[in-house]
């Protein structure tokens, strides 16, 4: 299970009764397959429980689908630049896999975590779009979703943002533009760290996924081995045959345990790692946003300077365009201030977010590691116990 922050927002140490303390908790449940063939999709029941005054009531249930969540993420990304928007599970491309029970459950969990992270973030939880998402009826939602993410506009795509950043870089390389970047060594360090982190995490996640597969494979081969041993046992007969049969039975038992552990490993270890990767990718998107904001600010600053020079020139020559130029200049200055404010907000938010992020991830990973260790220990102990229990039987077998 992916961990979330405490779902109680605001001050958490108050001894007041639960009803007077503000809360907003959401659960994503009940996946149901709707539609046919290529059009088929999964819908989820989203249950909201809250005492926030802005909400319609203490409880609300709506039906949502994956693209609705994507809409929400897009909106938040637009409005709350600087904040690390919680990541969404990937859109699945493999048809066959899309409706497997495992996939559906993993996605449901990830969506649940997604919404709850938003609901427990002190700024994001105030979002109007969140309220819409949690309360609007299905037709409204569909309209909004289609309008924003229909065929005319691509859904928020981290990759698209990266491409923008990348194309900026290549422009610089080709000499099309001079690099406009912050000269902030600590920020540079952070960027470098984030990029490296994504690579390393992706690798760890890849191996974690493979480990799940290995568990399944070992389980399968133990099952086959057990079956073959049982057959040999029947063929042998007498004490030795019994020994083989017992071995076979134990192997089959352990095979089942391995399959179970593979499931646990997937849910409790591999998924959290995957979630971590996505979270880092979200940060990269914010980094791109910050770069955009900085560039805008610089560009405006440039333009304002030029305008200022121009204005001075006009004033000297007592041109009749002075008034116009003054007006434009004032407008630009306001825009410039706005751009600066936007940029500085992002910087401020990011520095807060990064602290939260690190703490959150240490907690998330700690839990994942603990579950991993517990699972592996549990498995190893079952294996040891199973084989150990076989030994007395092998001892007692006397020769023909």
């Amino acid at each position, binding site marked *: *299970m992916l961990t*979330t922050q405490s779902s109680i927002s605001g001050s958490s140490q108050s001894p007041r009764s639960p009803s007077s303390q503000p809360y907003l908790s959401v659960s994503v449940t009940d996946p149901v397959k709707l539609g046919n063939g290529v059009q088929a999709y999964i819908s989820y029941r989203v249950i909201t429980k809250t005492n926030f005054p802005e909400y319609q009531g203490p409880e609300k249930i709506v039906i949502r689908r994956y693209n609705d969540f994507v809409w929400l993420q897009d909106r938040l990304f637009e409005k709350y630049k600087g904040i690390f928007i919680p990541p969404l599970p990937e859109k699945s491309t493999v048809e066959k896999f899309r409706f497997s029970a495992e996939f559906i459950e993993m996605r449901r969990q990830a969506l649940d975590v997604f919404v709850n992270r938003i609901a427990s973030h002190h700024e994001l939880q105030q979002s109007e779009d969140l309220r819409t998402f949690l309360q609007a009826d299905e037709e409204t939602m569909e309209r909004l979703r289609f309008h924003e993410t229909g065929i005319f506009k691509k859904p928020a795509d981290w990759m698209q943002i990266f491409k923008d950043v990348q194309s900026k870089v290549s422009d610089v390389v080709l000499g099309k533009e001079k690099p406009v970047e912050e000269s902030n060594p600590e920020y540079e*360090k952070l960027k470098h*760290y984030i990029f490296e*982190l994504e690579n*390393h*995490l992706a*690798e*760890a996640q890849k*191996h974690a996924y*493979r*480990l799940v597969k*290995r*568990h399944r*494979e*070992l389980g399968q*081969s133990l099952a*086959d*081995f057990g*079956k*073959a*041993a049982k*057959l*040999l046992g029947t*063929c*042998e007969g007498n*004490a*030795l045959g019994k*020994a*083989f049969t017992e*071995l076979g039975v134990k192997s089959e038992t352990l095979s089942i345990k391995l399959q179970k552990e593979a499931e646990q490993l997937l849910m409790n270890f591999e998924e959290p790692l995957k979630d971590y990767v996505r979270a880092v990718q979200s940060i990269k998107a914010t980094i791109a946003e910050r770069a955009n904001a900085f560039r805008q600010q610089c560009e405006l600053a440039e333009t304002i300077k030029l305008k200022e020079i121009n204005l001075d020139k006009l004033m000297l020559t007592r041109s009749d365009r002075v008034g116009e130029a003054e007006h434009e200049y004032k407008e630009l200055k306001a825009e410039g201030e706005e751009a600066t404010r936007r940029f500085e907000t992002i910087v401020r938010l990011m520095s807060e977010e*990064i*602290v939260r992020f*690190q*703490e959150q991830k*240490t*907690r998330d*990973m*700690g*839990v994942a*590691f*603990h579950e*991993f*260790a*517990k699972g*592996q*220990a549990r498995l*190893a*102990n079952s*294996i*040891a116990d199973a*084989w*150990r229990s*076989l*030994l*007395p039987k*092998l*001892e007692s077998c006397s*020769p*023909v």
Partner: protein
Amino acid sequence: MMRQENHGDQEADLHASQDDMESLVLDEPPSSNGQSSPSASTSVDRHSATATPATSSQGFNSILEPPSYADAIFTSFDSSSSNGHDCPKPSSYQSESPTRSEFLKIWVTDPQKELELSNSLVPGGTSYYTYLITTRTNMPEYGGPGSEFTVRRRFKDVVTLADRLSESFRGFFIPIRPDKSVVDSQVMQIEQFVELRRVALAKYLNKLAVHPTIKKSEELRLFLVVKGKLPLTRSVDMASRMLDGAVRLPRQLTGEATAVTDVNEAAQPAKGGRDLLRIFRELKQSVVNDWGGVKPTAVEDDKEFLERKEKVAEFEQQLSNLSQQAESLVKAQQDMGETMGELGLAFVKLTKLETEGAMFESQTIRANDMKNVATASVKASRLYRELNSQTVKHLDKLHEYLGVMLAVNSAFSDRSSALLTVQTLSSELVSLQSRIEKLEAAASKIFGGDRSRMRKIEELKETLKISEDAKSCAVREYERIKENNRSELERLDRERHEDFMGMLRGFVLNQAGYAEKMANAWEKLAEETGGYVKDGS
């Protein structure tokens, strides 16, 4: 306890490749203990023909009780704690034979390339490899305790030995010799091939050396002891031409007047090329048998044997199946170990990243957690690898017995061909009898008799006598082979029981022991991460 790592160690960790994983800093080395329980499996050296396995051994009882077999396992199986043995360790359930155990141990070493003498058509001659065969024994046939011999042999000599043994020991389960296969230079270098062959030869010769009957054979002794050219000819029969081979049958069968045959030769199996006519005869006989025409006098009515043969076939099939699954199991274990190791390395890299220029304390904490995960994973990976190499040694018994099955089938076909010989001779006797009777009946009608016919009758009667003798020989041979089959089956049952029980015990002990060790490593990690509790749990 975890050792405190400094950046230097982590540097080393980061650059560790898969192979270098061995050098990664891990916690406590495998614990050793005072127990010296002997290996529960590996090859059993059968020292006497009457070995009876002990029902329990002192080693196992003491390690049945918890906490763990792991320690006991490591002293037995850990290759690093070897006692310098290069002999197979004695099986713990091996009992002492009444007499001092005989041993015959053979080493195959030092392959050398030698040139073929230039009687070949190829200019410059061809080359072949010879191997140094060293034998140590205390058997009286070889000169008693402390005897040691060294000879040089080539693979052709081994083939000769194998052929001669299969002739002399019909009905026995004779170990199958290594393949003659020619090396394809695309597939393997000549050095690799020679090395594989050297190992295969050692295995083969040692298998011969533990066979209770064959170890005492003159053929083996000559092979191991006599320096220079191997004093064994390729085959017993001297005639290699078809006609000469046919000499060995009563001449009337071939319609030619030839010298008296050696009846014993007649009892030997028909060999290809040399005994074509005889083979045709016996083939005809076997067809007759199958079509249920003339009822042969000696029918394989040993029901017990036929049932046994079927069971053996069934056993062979299941064994082969299990052996295949064992291979898959080993592969799966290997893969698991590899992936676990790669996971560990990935976390090592992450640890390094989080440590270098950490900006927050939460990062430092996480780095420590990741280091613990890396340690546990790498340790588990190492344990899987060790477990696997032991598993291979145990389950190899399965493969070995597939080889034994080949020997069994060969022994069974010795019996069948001996029976066929008996049946052939019986049929010939019957037909000779009837010819004689016909001639006598015809002769009695003419008073005084027909001179030539009388002579013919006399000749036939002579031939009959020879054929009867030949048949007695063949029957004796058949009975001998039957007995060999029987005693060998008994031996096989005993040894198989011993071997497989040992294999199972070893396999299970191994799995249990390593699983415990792994549990320890993971429990440690669980403890180290005990501060993190899942929400709602």
